[in-house]
């Protein structure tokens, strides 16, 4: 599909409600500017994010996925973020091996007090996505290069 004049990447954010979601709120209340490309899903813990959600998000056409949780040691459920770390690390490496651009799956530790870091992470990830372009991974690109809908 021809590039619209200003293509905006669509980013899906899984934010853990105890730290990162609160961090995002703080970024908002303290007027921190960060790109509006992110759609946020509140999850009880970063450990709740199943790799299936990440793959399904990419399958439905999101350009990138961000999983953000509490710093190791701060997890409300003590070990949720450690499990998330193992799962995300394995998923990231495997997707890279398959040929998915690394920028498409990002993860971060953002605590409730780091509004600034949250804004910074979101803009970095969004710039990264602008670098790699729209997500055509699962589109049925026909021989003549035109894109069919993701669903077809």
């Amino acid at each position, binding site marked *: 599909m021809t590039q619209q004049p200003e293509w905006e990447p669509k980013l899906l954010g899984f934010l853990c409600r105890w730290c990162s979601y609160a961090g995002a709120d703080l970024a908002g209340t303290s007027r921190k500017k960060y790109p509006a490309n992110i759609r946020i899903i509140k999850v009880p813990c970063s450990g709740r994010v199943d790799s299936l959600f990440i793959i399904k998000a990419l399958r439905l056409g999101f350009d990138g996925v961000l999983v953000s949780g509490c710093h190791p040691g701060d997890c409300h459920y003590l070990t949720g973020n450690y499990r998330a770390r193992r799962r995300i690390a394995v998923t990231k490496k495997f997707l890279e091996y398959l040929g998915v651009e690394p920028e498409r799956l990002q993860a971060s530790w953002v605590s409730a007090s780091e509004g600034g870091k949250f804004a910074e992470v979101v803009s970095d990830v969004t710039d990264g996505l602008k670098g790699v372009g729209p997500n055509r991974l699962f589109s049925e690109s026909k021989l003549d290069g035109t894109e069919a809908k*993701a*669903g*077809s």
Partner: protein
Amino acid sequence: MANKKVSKKDIASLLEQWRQQFAVFAPSRESGVAAFAEWDGKDVSFLDWYRNTVVPPKASFLPPMEEMFRFEKGTEGYNIKPRPEEENKRLLFGVRPCDARAIAIVDMTFKDAYQDPYYLSKRNNTLLVGLSCTNPCESCFCTSMGTGPAESADVDLMLVDIGDEFLIEEVTDKGKELTRDLKEATEEDEAKAEQSKKAAYDRVTRKLNTEGIKDRLLASFDDQGFWEKTAAKCISCGICTLLCPTCYCFDISDEMVKQEGTRFRSWDSCGFPNYTKMPMENPRQEKWRRVRQKVCHKYEFYPMTFDVVACTGCGRCVRLCPVNWDITQVIESVPDKTGVNK
């Protein structure tokens, strides 16, 4: 009808000639596995390596996945857009007699009572050009199932290998048109063909005695012990059914993206536990029931309905099974309880 003949050297030009009117499909190994693919115009190497495809030719009529129709949710309600009819004429070159026989068996279901539009529109647009087997597999047992390596009953043309030429038997009128300008076969070619058929017939070593199998199966239908032993090593995968030329079960599923959706038809297998799963219960949850259904459908139910055993001995299920579950051993081991009144 006088048979024609063509030398192996001219096969490429013959295929090229057919390519003007039909989309010609021939066996190919490009994809890493023996399968029918659109003929590229020059490669006839399959004449040497080709034994049989992994995915049977039924896939040209009942594809692993096809769109039934699309639909749109407009403001004033749904609008269903059926798919345009299949018009392009096709020609399958290299169909083995066992697969051709299997296609005839599957045709019966898709023509019985309700006509299946998707299957029949493709089936009626396709010509089948058979190729006699010269190198049957160890797992083939077609000669025990009423067909054979050179059986020409269910194809439009049958090419019989006679050394560096093929004798062409014209089976249907449509087949005749294809060979209008080919040379007539001589007496001597006919004799060579008979001799080549006999040789191929004897090379099929695996035998299966299916005499009285329908009644034996009916009698031991409730013999749970036998079926549990038979199904013990089965891992309920779909290989022996999805890749069987006489299996035709399919699943229907919908997908909707925003306001546009599609209804798909895809292959399904009675070996899968969810095949008969209902919300409250599943009559064939246990593995032995599903293995029993697979065997009985082909050797008991189909014969009861269409008076033909739904197996042509192509051997795919024997050679492709991950655990070497062998249908010929199972059929032979069905206990004969017909004497004992149930």
